[in-house]
């Protein structure tokens, strides 16, 4: 139990270091990258609460992020702008304009409610069936966002969100989400869910209600994804449904899997590592294209290298960088071992 506090302190320390470090550097590009990193952190840690504890791969997470982003957008775009930004919006909603903080919770709540309603029957599925249905769920959410013009402006870009997300806000939300994920992991539901991840038959034989446990985790994950979506929406201020689809899904899953899905530490480590790798690769790609080296343009270097990195991690270290112990647990253990030796 004590090591969970150590883990929380270390992870929040890392988040603070990123926030303060980029603030000190004072370069706008770094500020942008770091804020993006912290928002990704919210999404990846959110995904960890379901995927890490249940052991089920979920593709639908980004769909709930989109839901949150649009919910917050509809609730916060100033009413005088709504006529332009969302011409088809329902009349009664045109006058609604609430504070971004409230909208953040509303975004999480709506994503959670939608997840609760549609996912209950899916939670009985395991293995391939559950992966395929979660993928289908992503496609459904994407299609709805693309076609529900009244709420999302259809496939066109939605603009006019107030820019309320900055580095400190992202850092605070990310810290809270990390604590929530750690608390959930050590909760009754979290422990039994992890037991079911390791052995469904044995967990059921102990009396664990596995679909119920998975359902709770899925709702929590959707809640966090919704909040992450709202956070991102108020950072980027204009977006279209295609921002919530395969490329982003692949990116957050890569982050989680490379870091280690079973631990919150892994989710944080993976997000940081992949964000920096992603930016470095994009920079390299840009530099290569600028020098017009070789015959043509270099395209897709970033994606290919990340995909190869994921394959390599799966082969060398299938559990990711932090496969089963949180950082606080690792540190308290080594210290105890040293004390025993001494």
């Amino acid at each position, binding site marked *: 139990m004590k090591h969970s506090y150590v883990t929380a302190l270390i992870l929040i320390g890392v988040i603070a270091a990123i926030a303060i470090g980029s603030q000190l550097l004072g370069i706008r590009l770094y500020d942008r990258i770091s804020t993006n990193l912290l928002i990704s952190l919210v999404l990846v840690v959110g995904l960890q609460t379901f995927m890490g504890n249940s052991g089920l791969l979920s593709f639908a997470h980004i769909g709930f992020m989109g839901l949150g982003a649009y919910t917050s957008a509809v609730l916060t775009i100033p009413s005088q702008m709504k006529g332009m930004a969302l011409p088809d919006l329902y009349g009664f909603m045109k006058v609604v304009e609430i504070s971004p903080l409230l909208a953040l919770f509303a975004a999480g709540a709506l994503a959670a409610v939608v997840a609760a309603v549609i996912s209950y029957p899916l939670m009985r599925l395991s293995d391939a069936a559950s992966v395929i249905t979660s993928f289908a769920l992503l496609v459904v959410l994407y299609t709805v966002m693309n076609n529900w013009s009244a709420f999302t402006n259809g496939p066109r870009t939605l603009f006019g969100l107030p820019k309320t997300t900055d580095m400190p806000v992202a850092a605070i939300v990310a810290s809270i989400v990390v604590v929530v994920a750690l608390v959930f992991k050590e909760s*009754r539901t979290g*422990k*039994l869910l*992890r*037991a079911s991840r*390791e*052995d469904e*038959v*044995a*967990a*059921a*034989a*102990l*009396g*664990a*209600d*596995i679909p119920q446990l998975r359902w709770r985790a899925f709702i929590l994950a959707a809640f966090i994804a919704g909040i992450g979506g709202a956070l991102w929406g108020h950072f980027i201020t204009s977006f279209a449904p295609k921002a919530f689809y395969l490329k982003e899904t692949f990116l957050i899953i890569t982050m989680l899997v490379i870091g280690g899905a*079973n631990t919150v530490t892994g989710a944080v480590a993976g997000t940081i590592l992949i964000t920096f790798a992603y930016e470095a690769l994009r920079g390299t790609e840009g530099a290569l294209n600028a020098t017009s080296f070789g015959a043509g343009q270099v395209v897709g270097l970033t994606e290919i290298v990340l995909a190869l990195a994921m394959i390599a991690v799966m082969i060398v270290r299938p*559990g990711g960088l932090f*496969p*089963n112990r949180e950082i606080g647990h690792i540190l308290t*253990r080594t210290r105890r071992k040293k004390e025993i030796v001494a």
Partner: protein
Amino acid sequence: MAQAGILAEALIGHSGRPQGRPHHLGKVMSETRLAVNAVSVEFTGLRALDHVSLSLATGEVVGLIGPNGSGKTTLINAITGQVKLASGTITAGSTTLSGLSPREVALAGVSRSFQIVRLFNTMTVFENVEAAALAKGASRTIAAQRTQNLLDELGLAAKADELGENLSYGDKRRVEIARALAAEPLFLLLDEPAAGMNDAETEALLHTLAELPGKRGLGLLIIDHDMGLIMRLCHRLHVLASGRTIAEGDAAHVRSHPAVIEAYLGKGAAHA
């Protein structure tokens, strides 16, 4: 043939009363009975269990023995809801278990271990045991306390922080037993708890198991091929062969039963 040898050794080697007779049985406040009535199980045409009846009271240790493939594990799976019954009923006290899911059977007070160990590999020993208490609805504090007591009792306290997958085979078995006990069951069904243990470990296990019915007032059903262990531990034996009950009763009775000798040693051995 190895099994027959073990039985033969047990037949000669262990005589007299088994240790740990249920002297306390009289003072158990309310004796509950796990009753298996004429249960049959079929796997696509193969009859794995054929009208098997068995009874196990709290405070009692019953050994379930029989050659490989005789249906011992299937019987445990049938009781715990892992396989469906073709016919028959199973009750624990006034609760009907037949037709319930494994989860519901567990909540009704029947815990089990598995023939092939099924630990939660990437969770710590502590968490493995704790999960069982939590699943039964114990509060976080009580679950943690109960887990600590069980780990102390079974000599696993030093390994509390190890991951399930890093344990030796014998330790894994003991964690599985601790996990089953953390649910505070009325009936505990152990499927080959001593398999893979060395002699010293088996001896320690024997002492732990022998104390359970008296200390915890539970009924213990145990499958094992170690006839020495079975004979010393069990008050009664139930012998299965090809899915049928061929004998039941105390060790002396079963040992001299012609059908048992035939099942283990082959036809004609009973008359030799």
